[in-house]
């Protein structure tokens, strides 16, 4: 049943995590994952990447640039 090599699984990992695999392929992959600690760990690493990425601090314009922007808005609003 499990003819999926780990080296093949890692190439399907994003399709799997994004919910883009067909039912049959997903079942095959999940069966493999259920008994392969290495692939399970690999998916954990990808989830860790996503977690670290979404936690990056926000970027913000410099105060000067933001002030200029508000001034530009006021000029636009006044000019109609």
């Amino acid at each position, binding site marked *: 049943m499990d003819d999926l*090599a*780990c*080296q*093949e699984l*890692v*190439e399907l*990992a*994003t*399709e799997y995590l*994004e919910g*883009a695999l067909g039912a049959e392929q997903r079942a095959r992959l999940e069966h493999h994952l259920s008994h*392969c*600690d*290495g*692939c*399970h*760990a*690999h998916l*954990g*690493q*990808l989830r*860790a*990447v*996503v*977690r*670290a*990425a*979404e*936690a*990056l*601090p*926000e*970027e*913000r*314009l*410099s105060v000067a*640039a*933001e002030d*200029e*922007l*508000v001034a*530009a*808005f*006021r000029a*636009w*609003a*006044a000019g*109609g």
Partner: protein
Amino acid sequence: VGERALVARLRSGDEAAFRELVAAHGSALLRLALIYSPSRAVAEEVVQETWIAVLRAIDGFEGRASLRTWISRILVNAARRRAGLEARSVPFSALGGDDEPAVDPAWFQREGPHAGHWARFPVDPSTLPEERLLGAEIRERVQGAIAELRTPQREVFVLRDVEGWPGHEVSELLEITPGHQRVLLHRARNRVRRAIEDLL
């Protein structure tokens, strides 16, 4: 519905509405602008120009795409033009030479009955404390890896994983197919993963 009200307030010259929009989308726009810009100063200029273009065009906003997709498209087109890139995204074939494996082949057994299976297991980060995963060391590696990504991979990674946009909105903005979007995401995630795997 909330979006339509915000657009109406903006059209009427409501400064609070403008500030709300800048607060909501400013970070994503700056992250996108940084992809194409040679310096942070240029990226900030691109963001300023984008907002001014948004104000000039807001009367024509029809709500066919979400407001953030519409604003981001203005930015991406302006920034790509400025960087001398085609405003439309490059065809997939032009990305060439980008089919690197997700995991270095050295991690796998090359022959024998278990060829293609792990030669040694990667570290499972599930026991890694959250404060370490989100700490300065890993954060700096992640930021460095993102900065090194090729442009198409970086666009997708920033929107999908850093900003958390749904995949369909990312492909809509970048005018690429959902499948292509996932291929780029796959390459990008694994590049970032390889940059931090020794810290997990």
